[in-house]
């Protein structure tokens, strides 16, 4: 079980407005993550989940509003300045270096640290390899030639190689087979139990709700609902996620039961034809 949040605010977004060209995607997002917390952002495609993450990582400029990391205003800081503060960002597309080996990918993940503390990096990489024995076996293999699950592990490993204090992770479940998804989930639960602060973006609600303790629901660039996963108004959530009507019948049967979010459960593989 994870240690309780300490109350120190690690990430704070206030009234963040951002977008691309003529399109404004975020219309004033407010979000706050405490140290040791595990928070998920959910919402439909195009709601602005990934853009929120990129704003926090510094990859998409904020038009108005502020972003604070560990109490410092970083709104104008480029991404490379946020990494030394302890931020690791894991994009949806993973963005590994496909023509570099596993080892080289990890080395670049620890680039900032290696500049002044190679010994610490060595111990961190040993830790990554012990978490993912599969990566240790494939040290010299090119990242692009690995399976989707292995790439997901390498992406997490590369993010961990910088010894971050907060992990910004965008749709870790995307494109993974159910069994691999469970492995990744177990890995992230482990990190959460060790006290790492995690901010997650997910479309796969079941995956997300098993990992996070708080959920924020984003709709058309605004946080429209926020609450502890244990006490979520499921009918409202379903409606906000745009599946309410379709599922009202099934929901009415299941709303009586509350969601237990922390217990990882095997999802039976389903195939309907």
């Amino acid at each position, binding site marked *: 079980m994870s240690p309780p949040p300490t109350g120190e605010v690690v990430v704070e977004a206030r009234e963040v407005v951002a977008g691309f060209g003529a399109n404004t995607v975020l219309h004033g997002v407010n979000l706050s993550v405490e140290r040791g917390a595990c928070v998920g952002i959910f919402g439909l495609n195009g709601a602005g989940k990934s853009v929120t993450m990129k704003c926090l990582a510094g990859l998409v400029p904020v038009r108005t509003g502020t972003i604070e990391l560990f109490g410092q205003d970083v709104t104008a800081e480029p991404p490379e300045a946020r990494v030394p503060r302890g931020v690791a960002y894991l994009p949806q597309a993973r963005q590994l270096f496909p023509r570099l080996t596993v080892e080289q990918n990890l080395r670049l993940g620890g680039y900032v640290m290696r500049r002044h503390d190679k010994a610490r990096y060595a111990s961190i990489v040993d830790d990554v390899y012990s978490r993912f024995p599969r990566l240790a076996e494939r040290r010299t293999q090119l990242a692009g030639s690995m399976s989707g699950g292995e790439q997901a592990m390498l992406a997490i490993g590369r993010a961990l190689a910088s010894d971050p204090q907060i992990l910004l992770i965008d749709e870790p479940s995307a494109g993974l087979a159910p069994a691999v998804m469970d492995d990744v989930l177990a890995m992230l639960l482990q990190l959460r139990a060790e006290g790492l602060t995690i901010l997650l973006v997910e479309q796969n609600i079941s995956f997300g709700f098993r990992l996070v303790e708080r959920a924020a629901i984003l709709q058309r660039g605004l946080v429209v609902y926020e609450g502890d996963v244990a006490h979520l108004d499921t009918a409202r959530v379903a409606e906000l996620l745009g599946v309410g009507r*379709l599922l009202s019948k099934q929901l009415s049967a299941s709303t009586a039961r509350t969601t237990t979010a922390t217990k990882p459960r095997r999802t039976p593989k389903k195939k309907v034809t």
Partner: protein
Amino acid sequence: MRSLRNKTEVQHRRSIDVGLVLLACVVLPPLTGWAMPDLLSSAHALTLTYGVSLGIAALSLNLLLGYAGQLSLGHAALLGAGAFAASVIVDRFGLPMYVGWAVGGLAGGVVALAIGIPALRLRGLYLALVTLVFGATMQASVLRWRFFTHGSSGASLPRRWWFGDHILINEPIYLSMCLVVLVGVWLVDVNIIRTRLGRAFLAIREDETTAQSFGIDVVRYKLLAFVLSGVMAGIAGALYGGGIGLVTSDEFGRELSLRIVLIVVIGGIGRRWGPVVISVLLAIAPTLPPPFRRYDLVIAAGITLYNVVKLPEGLAGLIAHRRAKPTGPPVDVEQLRELDLAAVAGAAAPLGGGTVLIVHEVSVEFGGLHAVEDVSLRVEPGQIVGIIGPNGAGKSTLFNAISGFVPSTGAVTLDGVPISWAKPHERAAAGLGRTFQNVGLARDQSVRQNILLAQHHFASYSDLAALAYSPSARDVEARLAGLADEVITGLGFEEYADTPVRQLSGGQQRLVELAAVLATGPKLLMLDEPTAGLSPAAAENLAERLRQLRDDRGQTILLIEHNVPLVLDLCDYVYVLSAGQLLAAGTTEELSAMPEILGAYLGGEVFA
């Protein structure tokens, strides 16, 4: 009626303008040369002739780079081909020089065709690379062969007026003839831009995928642009050679190719006046006092560098920007309420009566990964069919497979016609109209241009008719322009008709795209997330308009949507995709009774 009269008046005035220019071209140089020999000596006339042929070469490269977006770094070799071909014709066979110009143009075109066929199959800078290597190779080899060039001494190219003449016309007269050719090339260039050809070129420059979705055969038009450019370059080479009277291989090397590129970049990529003026300026620079004489190339290169980094449209672009009127603020998408899509839609092609679209066991594989696996679906006439599914389920990939943008296995039949092997532009021409998630429009072009672009398939005049702007091409263009006006009025976009699409809001762009596709009267309208970027109210409105389109016109629609409630409301039949496979299909009622869809859609047991 009034606007019609204005149009004819404008055309009338234009023809008078052209006549005046032609008259001036023919009369002025010989007159000046005769009356004021000091002002226009034969040396000056020669310099100006060089400037004029450089101007034609610049127009030639501009056609390729400015319109079609392809870069040639071996243009001098095309000029050389024209010059040597003209020399063979005029010098060896004693034919008049204008026959030499024509043969020069032909030679330039043929050489461009031969290089373009392999080089233009590849995207990106490959044409630049191949032309660069080609230009250097020609200068080192063929242009030195005795047969063409009499070795290093060069081949003579006399300014012969009539068959077998030995008396050569003088420089000022030759200059006026070159000016006439420049006007001719200029007019052809104007004709290219105001017809199907120019629209296709500009669309390719912006985005080849968009161009294909509008039914444009990208490879063919790129090749056409290069061949036309080659013809102009060949003519320029022949004129230039005739000016000097002698053609040597050294003239047509890398320096000349580079100079032409600089001229176009300084004068303004995609423009006419700028490159021609800069050509003449560069030609006369060496006759000016220093520092122009000594530093002309340094200045030109410096300006080019500055232009590229600071003013991507060149000097002419700078002037145009100063003139450009600021556009009004983007209107809100709420105007959708007033929108009558049926009025926007073009005459629909009659359907065969059977199923409009049959997709049979289509699979798409990306590097061993099945993005779409054995998906079959049917769309009946007059139906709105929806495809839903989670992110990464393969919906857009399936759309791309149906419209031919990704290679797939399986069979696709449109209105009884198998189209599995057809290229994207052929499928578009067969009546498959589609929109894109990130809006498939040529964004630098106006709303009107985009709607005309979508009508590519209906601009059925020949390429030659387009180049000459023949009466038949004129009629077709007038009809299409009228149709575009109707569509714009139907959209309520009169105010934005000539605004570049880029300056519209996301929602407005989506509407223009929909209108442009609808205006082609597609048998099947395929919409990829039509409500993305719209406010909930606007999305509801759009759904209502689509329903109207189906009810009033019997338009058949296949759409992808993330907005599940909207799909369930709107669609007659819904397919659910998950992980590349068809998970379920049915009417809204049928789907609501299938509990497993929730799981697939949101990942496992959700609220259980």
